[in-house]
């Protein structure tokens, strides 16, 4: 009798959980929910991936939903040609890396200045820092274009690096605030004792503050790189014709395609050569592939960044 009751209870415990621990049913639904949401998240990417292997017939055929009847890898070859893949990849890397380095160095210095020192008008400057973040990129880019053309730095990486060096790169207020949060939690006693030993302010920054906030550097580098990589509107206004990043090549994909393929191939294969979703999606997948690779190796830093960055500490 006792045993039976006990079994019933443990079954109940197993199914419905107890003391805050979710039971089997709870867990089951939780996983179902998680998988469902994951599917919705990835839906557009998966759809693009599947369509990027499709030929024109499969794209037109409403009965073909996910798996193409014939895998066409030629789409990728064509897309790479249209994107001018290797050159654009090199340009994208350049545009990602150099401004990012400039941005990280300058934001760490600025963030340290705000976090570690008390000075008059500090509150006002920090308010301005946030207001600058609020200004639309389009708003700033119109007059900045004129200024850059006067300074004669349009069409070169300098038009990205100079603002990044002075703390006005792409969404750089965010990085300054992340560094601010990191440096703020460094105990004052450490820097004070270093000061007693005769270290200069710059020495304290380099020897104590920087080594203690390596995570901030990694997080900011990654986010900055990704944001510079994905930026299209600014890149087109500043670099047009000189540097072509993958995203820029992608945004003018249809135009380039129609100029490089359609004119030459009038005849039997013309229908297959005309612009179609398959090639475009292959191009899109190619542009996001490097980012996915980066994410595969560094996702720990993207995912755990918030717990470490102390954004929540305010």
């Amino acid at each position, binding site marked *: 009798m006792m045993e039976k009751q006990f079994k019933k209870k443990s079954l109940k415990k197993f199914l419905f959980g107890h003391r*805050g621990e*979710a039971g089997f049913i709870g*867990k089951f639904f*939780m996983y179902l929910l*998680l998988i469902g*949401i*994951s599917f*919705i*998240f*990835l*839906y557009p990417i998966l759809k*693009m991936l599947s369509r990027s292997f499709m030929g024109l017939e499969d794209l037109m055929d409403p009965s073909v939903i996910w798996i193409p009847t014939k895998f066409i890898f030629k789409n990728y070859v064509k897309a790479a040609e249209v994107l001018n893949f290797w050159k654009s990849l090199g340009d994208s890397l350049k545009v990602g890396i150099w401004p990012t380095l400039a941005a990280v160095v*300058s934001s760490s*210095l*600025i963030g*340290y200045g*705000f976090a570690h*020192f*008390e000075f008059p008008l*500090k509150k006002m*400057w920090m308010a*301005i820092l*946030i207001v600058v973040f*609020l200004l*639309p*990129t*389009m*708003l*700033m880019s*119109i*007059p*900045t274009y*004129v200024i850059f053309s006067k300074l004669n730095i349009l069409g070169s990486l300098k038009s990205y690096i100079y603002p990044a*060096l*002075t*703390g*006005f790169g792409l969404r750089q207020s*965010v990085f300054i605030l992340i560094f601010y949060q990191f440096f703020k939690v460094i105990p004052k006693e450490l820097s004070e004792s270093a000061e007693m030993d005769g270290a*200069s*302010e710059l020495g304290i920054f380099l020897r104590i503050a920087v080594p203690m906030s390596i995570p901030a550097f990694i997080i900011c580098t990654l986010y900055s790189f990704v944001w510079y990589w*994905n*930026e*299209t509107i600014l890149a087109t206004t500043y670099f047009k014709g000189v540097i072509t990043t993958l*995203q820029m090549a*992608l*945004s003018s994909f249809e135009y380039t395609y129609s100029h490089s393929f359609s004119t030459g191939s009038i005849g039997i294969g013309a229908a297959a050569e005309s612009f179609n*979703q398959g090639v*475009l999606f292959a191009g*899109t997948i190619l542009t*996001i592939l490097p*980012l996915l690779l980066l*994410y595969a190796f560094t*996702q720990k830093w*993207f*995912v755990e960044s*918030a717990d470490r*960055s*102390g*954004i*929540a500490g305010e």
Partner: protein
Amino acid sequence: MKKFKAFIKKIWITISEFVRCKLSVWIGKGLRFIGKYTGISWLYKKYQKVVSNKGKKAIAGYLFISLWLIGLMIFAARPIVESIRMALSNYSGSRIIDGSSTFIVEGFGFKQFAQIFKDNPDHVEAILSTLLDVAVVVPLVLIFSLLLAILLHRKLKGIKIFRMIFFIPVILLSGNLLGYFNTYNLLTVSQLQSSDLQNLLTFYLPTQVVDVIINVFGKIILILWFSGVQTLIFLAGLQKDNKAVYEAASIDGANRWEMFWKITFPQLLPLMTINIIYTTVIYSNTGNELTSLISTTITQPDYGRDYASALSWILFGIEIVVIVFYVMIFKLANRKDK
């Protein structure tokens, strides 16, 4: 390399020593001398304040942010002033004077804004629809990111894989990609938008509500894709939770629902403000009707840079209105609880 480093260090030390000891003493002496014979002793007093430890710290602080201050002058203050000037001008653009084209700004007035609101009803429509779009999407992003954060906070096996999947949009989000999603109808899971569902809903609910719900379903992927960083921020807030508080609450007989509203939610409220600001700024700058309108009008001869500047100030206005509106709501809600 090492030698070079040592060399730099040597120079740095001498300079800093010099500034710290010699120079400050000299200036102090000089100022005291001047003060003695001219009667302006406040100069000396002020100087002593500056040389004091507090003053030194303040100077060091300004030196650290000096880069930013320079940038503020060149890359923020000037563009802002010029943008305002352009938006309030009668004409600004390049004109050919003496054979070479120069950029000129002419006149002063609200001509550009008048042109937007009087002559171009389709542009006004774009502005209004952008405002509505941002105002609807921002709270939804907040709600979804809160839900996602709570879901990902659970300790389940394999939660790390789901976290990895959920944050893929953070790295992929770009105007290009969203543009293609939009043009090729990838932002709706087609099964969710079937007419059966709509019919079923209209049977039970008034049509206006159904329209809103269907609209949300149509944007669900967009909303999820925009909620990556916000989820991270909420997740960070959740991870700071104090376990002892929950234990105490459960001993007092609180159920999970109560614990969420009484303990978890108030903790996340301060993060709401950050997330509202972040969401509004990112969403209103990543490819919507108004930004595309701005980028097309820049190059069109009928409109030009002045017109586009005026439009972009309106975009800024939209951001401010949305942020202030939602922050106020959350502040008021918070006050009522207390």
